[in-house]
């Protein structure tokens, strides 16, 4: 299956969206072009604040601006929003529940930048922070429509954002809906819950499994906190053989854990298989290479379905639909990171 590839879906969309919102500011920490807000800065220079490589202060100043009624949108790599400045994030922004928007680019293992640039436990950390809302972009349509969703939330919002060349999986006229999963297929054998870029990866395998007679309810989830969507809860209760989660994140504390919590609380008796990083850091290499190395790919999904159903489907790697892979060097990115 191939999708339309949208180059820099955030860049112009954010410029257009901000036009009639004078309260919207942008703060960056020396990754302005890398986070697709270089042109935004040039168009709205009075609303743009360069904070340099000093994230603790950037979060604090964002808090002060938000207290005064402005809506700062922080653009940097995800790791720099919660690892180094976690205390500032919690005490200056989350405790007072301020309207600060944290645009975290390069979620999970999307970058050859290696362990220092790969946000593999951000959802786990953010889920444990009171008042925090967590959203994840899964395609170009969501990159465009997530802005209204975040804007409407009266508290801090952390967004796992996508940049560069992004597939359009969902029709443009089907925008992001808060706390509402997209139902991509229905079936009673397996419930598959995917988020972010893992949805596109899962879609390589799902049609092949369906051809083999496997009934799959496949949900794409973009609101990671709160995690109270009745569509998700229902799908967890109806899976005959089990539930599989697939996330571009550690299997500890992310969607897999959130699903496990819901299943345990509802007394669901089926098994859960979590696809994601198995309590390990990764390293610098291409996204495709890392997804294969750490078992975050379509092949891993087929394997988990086979285990749950105690069957072998004899699906070869060549059969798994070749999706496009983003080249490391692309004109849609400011640098190869």
């Amino acid at each position, binding site marked *: 299956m191939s999708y339309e590839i949208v180059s820099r879906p955030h860049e112009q969309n954010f410029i257009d969206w901000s036009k009639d919102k004078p309260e919207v500011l942008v703060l960056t920490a020396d990754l302005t072009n890398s986070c697709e807000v270089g042109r935004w800065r040039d168009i709205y220079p009075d609303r743009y604040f360069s904070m340099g490589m000093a994230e603790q202060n950037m979060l*604090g*100043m964002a808090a*002060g*601006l*938000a207290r005064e009624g402005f809506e700062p949108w922080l653009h940097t790599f995800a790791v720099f929003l919660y690892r180094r400045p976690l205390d*500032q994030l919690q*005490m200056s922004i989350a405790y*007072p*529940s301020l309207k600060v928007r944290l645009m975290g680019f390069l979620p999970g293992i999307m970058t050859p930048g290696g362990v220092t640039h790969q946000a593999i436990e951000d959802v786990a950390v953010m889920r444990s922070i009171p008042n925090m809302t967590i959203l994840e972009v899964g395609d170009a349509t969501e990159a465009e429509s997530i802005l209204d969703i975040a804007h409407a939330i009266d508290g*801090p919002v952390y967004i796992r954002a996508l940049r560069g060349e992004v597939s359009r999986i969902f029709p443009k006229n089907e925008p992001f809906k808060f706390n509402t999963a997209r139902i991509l297929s229905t079936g009673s054998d397996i419930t598959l819950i995917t988020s972010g870029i893992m949805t596109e990866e899962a879609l390589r395998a799902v049609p092949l499994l369906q051809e083999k007679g496997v009934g799959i309810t496949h949900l794409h989830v973009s609101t990671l906190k709160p995690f109270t969507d009745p569509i998700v809860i229902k799908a967890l209760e109806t899976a005959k053989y089990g539930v599989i989660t697939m996330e571009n994140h550690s299997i500890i504390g992310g969607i897999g854990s959130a699903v496990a919590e819901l299943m345990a609380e509802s007394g669901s008796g089926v098994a859960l298989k979590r696809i994601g990083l198995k309590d390990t850091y990764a390293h610098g290499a291409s996204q495709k290479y890392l997804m294969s190395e750490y078992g975050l790919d379509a092949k891993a999904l087929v394997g988990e379905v086979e285990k749950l159903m105690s069957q072998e489907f004899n699906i070869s790697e060549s059969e798994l639909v070749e999706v496009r892979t983003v080249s490391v060097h692309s004109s849609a990115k400011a640098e190869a990171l």
Partner: protein
Amino acid sequence: MSDSRAEKLDIVEMQRIASGIRKRVLAHTISNNGGYMSQACSSAELLAAMYGGVLNLAPLDGAINPPNFIGVPLVGTPSVKNYKTGAQFHGVKGASLDRFIISPAHYALVVYAALIETNRLREDGLDFFNKDGSTVEMIGAEHSPGFETTTGSLSQALSQAGGIAIARKIRGETGKTWVFMSDGEFQEGQTWEALQASSFHKLSNLRVIVDVNQAQCDGPMESVMSIEPLVDKVRAFGWKVSVVSGHDLPELTSVCLEESNQPHMILCYTDPVRGLPLLNERRPVLHYLRFKSSEEIAKYKLAYEEMVK
């Protein structure tokens, strides 16, 4: 002095406030067998100057009762929008008025005492100190009298005040945004990030007053982690820096009201046993005063009686 308010400042009244702060904190420390006493000794004049006239705050109708704690700010609830911070003790906000952000929340007891002495917090406010369900918390948070931010994790106020100062600059407000800091906070990296960002963004509406008492939790700062030469360092970060004796009210107030086209920091070098020489017996660790014996309590009671004579 270029501010017209300078002529109206009442130094004698400020001295009364400072003396009142020391008395109240000592009385409280004796009756509770514990308190942040050295902080009161070092910062009494500093807070007296701020609340006694340096700050351009809206007057209150009268002293406010310390409210009960009504809960934390919670996303998705109406209370978030209308959450009342302890800034209500500083009067209504206004474009031409000053803001005052307390950074070292461990000074809460001293701040509460200053608010009582300036008729902003009810006379019996300290009776609620560290009592369950009260906002008069030991380490103040944004619901506590005088507090607008939650800064018990030290060195986070200056960045937040910088954000407030940027917002006020965008809106063209003339009031200043003041931050009260302790010298220990200059050991934290965030302080220096905030200093560089404030001068980079030309926040000439930002003022910082520092209690340089050279004492911290583990003991004298020189033995824990030296921050000197502070004046040179802060100046190198693009700030206007003034150094004053933190107990000299005429000098302190005069410097505070100077105009500046840069962010301005006033380093108040202070004595952590000022007005209570008995505290010298506790050196080198002055951070918190808890009595070790009934004899010691008796000595402090005598000192209190001397103080109120």
